[in-house]
């Protein structure tokens, strides 16, 4: 029963932590940058970077709810971007978009199949996938930079960004919080055996989630290509770490279960995005930025990592 008590405290702190973190970042940087944080240019920069983080984090939130993880999202995005670019050059830019999304989905599907069929821990399985994809990008791009037709750049418009932003938030929230799928996903993370004994095929739920995450990576691959007009072997390289940071800042528990909240993904993304913009506005040196990010990462892990659940869940 002692567990109950601390658990409740923990949960309430987990609930306020993302708000606290975001408020702290916003207040601190608004003061230090004398309001420049909300200038048009700064917001635009935040939006462009934040879009990747938001979509990645949204995917992570679903995976985390189930106690799963996908380390390969960054390079999935890279491969999707490369395929998108190849197709755009070979066929046309309109076929390239579904090609990118399809690529992401296929990679997600493979991840899902490995995790559900072989029962290899998702962290290990997707880490292996990460290395494979890293190699695949090199093969696809022949180790260099591939340029897309310049018309591709015209697809990267504000309406597209805002559409993706809103769609991610609305669909993500509804799916996780308001549908059977979301409820069951959390249950899978909380107690897989109980879910099995309730006649629910948790492998199917996991598979679908990996496919969704793969699809997100595919979209991001396209977004990256439309933004930069080029595919390189390092496209998507920073996605995983940023999304993981945001997931933790949103107090999404990596151990899964019912305390997973979609708002965590949104709050975490805002926190990390504004943190990065704020630090750049203040011209903090590269090394110190890294240091601060690492520090925040650790604190967030400490807060969101519900050690007590570990034994129950894994």
């Amino acid at each position: 029963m002692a567990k109950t008590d601390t658990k409740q405290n923990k949960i309430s702190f987990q609930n306020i932590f993302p708000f606290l973190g975001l408020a702290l970042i916003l207040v601190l940087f608004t003061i230090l940058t004398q309001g420049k944080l909300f200038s048009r240019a700064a917001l635009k920069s935040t939006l462009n970077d934040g879009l990747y983080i938001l979509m990645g984090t949204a995917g992570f939130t679903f995976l985390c709810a189930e106690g799963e993880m996908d380390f390969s999202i960054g390079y999935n995005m890279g491969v999707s971007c490369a395929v998108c670019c190849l197709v755009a050059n070979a066929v046309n830019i309109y076929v390239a978009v579904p090609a990118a999304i399809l690529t992401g989905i296929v990679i997600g599907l493979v991840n899902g199949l490995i995790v559900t069929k072989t029962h290899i821990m998702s962290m290990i399985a997707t880490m292996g996938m990460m290395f494979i994809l890293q190699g695949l990008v090199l093969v696809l791009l022949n180790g260099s930079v591939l340029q897309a037709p310049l018309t591709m750049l015209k697809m990267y418009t504000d309406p597209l960004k805002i559409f993706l932003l809103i769609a991610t938030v609305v669909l993500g929230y509804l799916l996780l919080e308001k549908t059977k799928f979301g409820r069951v996903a959390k249950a899978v993370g909380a107690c897989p055996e109980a879910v099995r004994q309730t006649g629910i095929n948790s492998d199917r739920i996991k598979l679908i989630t990996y496919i969704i995450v793969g699809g997100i990576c595919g979209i991001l691959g396209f977004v990256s290509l439309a933004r930069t007009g080029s595919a390189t072997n390092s496209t998507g390289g920073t996605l995983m770490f940023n999304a993981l940071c945001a997931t933790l800042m949103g107090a999404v528990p990596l151990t899964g279960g019912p305390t997973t909240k979609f708002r965590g993904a949104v709050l975490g993304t805002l926190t990390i995005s504004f943190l990065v913009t704020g630090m750049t506005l203040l011209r903090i040196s590269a090394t110190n930025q890294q240091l601060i990010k690492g520090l925040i990462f650790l604190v967030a892990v400490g807060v969101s990592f519900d050690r007590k659940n570990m034994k129950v869940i894994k």
Partner: protein
Amino acid sequence: MSDENLLLKVEHMYKSFGITKALQDVSFGLRRGQVLGLIGENGSGKSTVTSIIAALQPADSGEMFLEGKPYAPKNSVEAQEHGIAMILQEKGTFDLLTVAKNIFVGKEERFVRHGFLDGKAMVREAQKALDTIGADDIRAEKPLASLNFEERKLVEVARAMYNDPTILVVDETTTALSRNGRDILYKIMEKMKSEGKSVIFISHDLDEIMEVCDTVTILRDGIYIDTIEKKDYEPALLRRLMVGREVSDHYYRTDMESCKNPEVVLRMDHVSCKDVKDVSFELHKGEILGFGGLGDCGMHILGNVAFGLTDPDLGKVTAGDGTVIKNSQVAMSKKIAYISKNRDQETLMVSCSIKDNVCLASYDKIKKGPFVFKKDENQFIKESSEGLEIKMRDTDQYVMELSGGNKQKVALAKWLGFGADIFILDCPTRGIDIGVKSNIYQLMIRLREEGKSIIMISEELAEVIGMSDRVIILKEGKISGEFTREQQLTELMLIDYMV
């Protein structure tokens, strides 16, 4: 109760968990050479008070005296040094270590010679400890994972007894033990008594309490109620003190009719798997079919097979219409429900809310369009738990905060809400106090009258006999006897078929 005879005194103890007051002004004493029974419904504070004595958690306020001297241990190691040992209700062993390492976990330095662990000496000592308590068929060098549940419990007993404690706390240990295991424990208690040492004994089984305890202290909702000496024992009195109201002695079914409906709803056909050999039976509509036997007779896995969770090696399970139950999805489509013996690990998601648990099986029913709304969930819970009287703050309360009985009610509400027609209940009253037990029996009777069918698997023969239309006894995985309600069954009659 003279003072020099008093070994341990607990005075004005308080403990709260958040808003839950687990203990309020609890005081009692433990004499030398006494076996003190501690009884009360779930959540009455029995485990809390003993865990404070064993220093597993601190009290909010209150004092304890050991042999007249103030006793305020800071941690369980200090409590052990004071001669207090505890056998926990939950499993407290490590599967991957050997029996010997489990017995001496945390005390390995005792066997360190020249910087290395002397494994042989440890095994020798451990075997001695096991032999002393009479569990000599457990080998100390074996890995714990190779032992069954009961043997593991005995390892814990050996661990507790190794330090030769003056006070032994036994918290619900006997529910996990067979007759043989119980006898070992009773013998230990007897021996301690004769040496002037004392035992605090917690159990749900009133008969057992009355048999082994010299005195019984009753707690209810964290409050000390009364202490009754052996000469004044009377089941009805104890029950009333525990529950706080009159409970009838006869809470099982009173009718002696067995089910006569010929309609078969579930059929098991020559099923063989791990612990089961060639088992066939039919479950009829409106029937309570009881399964009895020893803990390892295979009846528990049978429930698993019937719900499609375990594939049988041979044979098959079919629903009334002939559909083969090949997995739990099919089982559920045939309106079969299953509650595992290991309720907290397998049936419930204890880290989730009551709402999440009750609704889990029925989202297809609850959702409107693609969406699940809170309002509908709450309405669903209200309908599902009607008549169950789950004690809860609200539907968002975490299941882990509930008592055993309330947890079981949540599990039942889940399947009632789902609208199951066939209930497979494995040990439905395990670790549950009398009040809730009687609720569950009443519910079973109601379900039977509504034409639902129930498979009840239980290690408590009394309830199997008391509730079933038909009883099947398993022995070593095979059906060894089948009886109908009309036969006026007694426990003795059935035990012959079990061993």
